[in-house]
């Protein structure tokens, strides 16, 4: 961090460095814990940028129908396995708004590979907020407004930002739609892990003794075995003909069965540590009940650590869902998730010819990275009194 970021006027320095600076920062002493965490988190620029992009990603997933030009199942005849459409700004030497050229597909008579040639005589402008495939926004409001497209109906040459798959479907639209399942599964899975982890970790830390021993052995066991082979094997128990929703929940349950251990460790460790603090003893002496002590006095001491653990659990969930769906034992088509989209890339020969099929994979990596950066920033901020 450069010194510049520390001296921005109006930004209180959370850590008093020298006595002179302290007088200026009375605010620091009256600040709540959450204020302190926020001030410290704000200084972690990478984390702030990551939060912004994650928010953007989740928003586009929620409003996927509006953001994307086509529906997930819309097929374009004669456009199968097409490369991404370049967005152009210069037509015959003159600058103009974003446009595309219509693309014609022809099979090479010798290699039987498809050749896509743009028709450079006629620019087709990209229209913003235009009409297109009808849909229901959030499943409630019928609409046919799209953020961008090249016009209504099949007559206008389509725009494919990420190219098309072997059935002629727009990979961009499918990637954004697929984000719904791929981004929701880790959230639901982590929420479930959170529940199991807090309950078991809490019991283990609070009661100790035999309960503690059993929970600890269970955690040892779950973290000592290779998870992916176990998931693959257990997925044999998922019937193939289950609906998308059922498979979705089955997978989140599979994820959280193993994912809770990290959280349980944090809860147990912190409970054991905080139970010994003077203020816990003071509360006890003042006659507070057990639950009041746990909820009112101990819990606030480690909520920030819980949030860090949760954030760090999410990338693992994304990786697990994508891996399982990719090898064909997780989500199944027609459901769309990033893992399902990558199933098309299983054939290495087709990847070599149509590398754009890997684009959903870039989303997987990017999302994992963004969550890691946020987690990193949160970890630094979680304990505002240290350093």
């Amino acid at each position, binding site marked *: 961090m450069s010194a510049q970021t520390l001296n921005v006027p109006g930004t209180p320095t959370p850590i008093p460095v020298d006595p002179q600076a302290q007088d200026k920062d009375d605010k620091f002493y009256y600040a709540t814990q959450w204020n302190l965490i926020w001030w410290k988190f704000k200084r972690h620029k990478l984390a702030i940028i990551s939060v912004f992009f994650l928010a953007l990603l989740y928003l586009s997933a929620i409003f996927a129908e509006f953001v994307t030009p086509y529906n997930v199942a819309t097929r374009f005849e004669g456009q199968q396995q097409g490369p991404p459409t370049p967005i152009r700004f210069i037509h015959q030497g003159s600058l103009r708004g974003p446009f595309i050229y219509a693309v014609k597909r022809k099979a090479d008579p010798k290699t039987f590979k498809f050749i896509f040639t743009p028709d450079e005589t006629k620019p087709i402008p990209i229209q913003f907020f235009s009409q297109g495939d009808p849909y229901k926004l959030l499943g409630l409001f019928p609409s046919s407004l799209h953020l961008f497209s090249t016009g209504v109906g099949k007559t206008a040459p389509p725009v494919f930002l990420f190219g098309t798959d072997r059935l002629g479907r727009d990979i961009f639209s499918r990637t954004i739609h697929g984000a719904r399942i791929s981004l929701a599964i880790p959230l639901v899975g982590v929420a479930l892990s959170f529940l199991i982890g807090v309950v078991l970790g809490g019991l283990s830390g609070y009661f100790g003794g035999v309960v503690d021993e059993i929970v600890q052995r269970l955690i040892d*066991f779950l973290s*000592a*075995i*290779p998870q992916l082979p*176990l998931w693959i094997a257990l997925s044999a128990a998922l019937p193939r003909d289950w609906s998308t929703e059922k498979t979705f929940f089955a997978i989140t349950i599979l994820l959280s069965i193993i994912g809770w251990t990290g959280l349980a460790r944090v809860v147990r460790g912190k409970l054991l540590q905080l139970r010994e603090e003077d203020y816990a003893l003071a509360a006890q002496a003042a006659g507070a009940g057990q639950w009041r002590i746990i909820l009112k006095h101990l819990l606030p001491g480690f909520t920030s650590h819980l949030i860090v653990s949760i954030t760090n659990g999410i990338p693992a969930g994304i990786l697990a869902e994508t891996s399982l769906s990719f090898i064909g034992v997780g989500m199944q088509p027609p459901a769309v998730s990033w893992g399902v989209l990558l199933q098309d*890339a299983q054939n290495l020969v087709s*990847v070599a010819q149509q590398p754009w099929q890997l684009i959903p994979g870039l989303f*997987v990596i990017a999302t994992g990275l963004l969550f890691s950066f946020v987690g990193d920033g949160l970890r630094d901020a979680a304990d505002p009194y240290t350093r």
Partner: protein
Amino acid sequence: MLAFIIRRVITLVPILILISIVSFAVIELPPGDWVSFRIESLRQSGLQVGEDEIYRLTSQYGLDKPAYVRYVSWVTNMLQGDFGYSFQWNEPVNKILAERVPRTMAISLMSLVLAWIISTPIGIISAVKQYSAIDYASTFLSFIGLATPGFLLALILAYFSITVIGFSPLGLFSQQYLDAPFSLAKLLDLGKHLVLPLLIVGLTGTGVAIRVLRANLLDELKKQYVVTARAKGLSEYQVLMRYPVRMAINPLISTIGFVLPGLVGGEVVVSIVLSLETTGPVLLRAVQSQDLYLAGGIVMMLSTLTVIGTLLSDIALAALDPRIRFGGVRK
């Protein structure tokens, strides 16, 4: 030391029992039972299956008995080396396991070693030159290692291998060496095919190892003995290598415990993408065709070996660090 080893081996027992229960669940959970699949597949191949044959199979696999009896007989058979029968391969499961499981474990362990070889210098440099460009680059690299699923990396690297180098990394051997007798050329070919899997499987471990080594070394460098060593006039290289690095490397061994399961799991998925002849493709096909004694056997063997690997790393750590041996600090 002996007492420590005995204590650790005893804690292994409940874990092994849990592993066997979970592996048994893999065999039992899916709807339908193994015998009806077997009969179905026999019928599909045109064989007549009579009532007495069904009865024979049912009692052979104990399907007429309650689940816990089946579990006990499965475990006792397994202890005698009988993992059941794979109808898909028409072979006893232990034969397939004996061929495939050692390969998965070998690739996982070799990736672990590779991960150390890569991460040790990077970890040391990024701790010594904290907040330098190398430090940021290595942090970024380890984040990518943690955020990229192995199968995706396998896909991307295989793509570049095919398009740029023109080498197809699929399988463990090239076509012409598949049935060839052992020779130097065959070994070389195997080596070429192993580069990609080792790199991919190792990357996750590399990310973790860099983070751990860097954090530990940063802690050690702050300690007073480093200042003392420097004050006594040791060269900067000696100051670093004599004590802090040796201290910081110790915890790397203890990370085996939580890195190894990930590596084994990663190997399984990567081998599916690159169709390596290890456990991955076998497990996937076994799951898809409900060949569940095979699937359960693979989970059982991989988990058991991983847990034993962790145990060995614990013992090695105790041998290196007397504080652990005498119960001063836990892990």
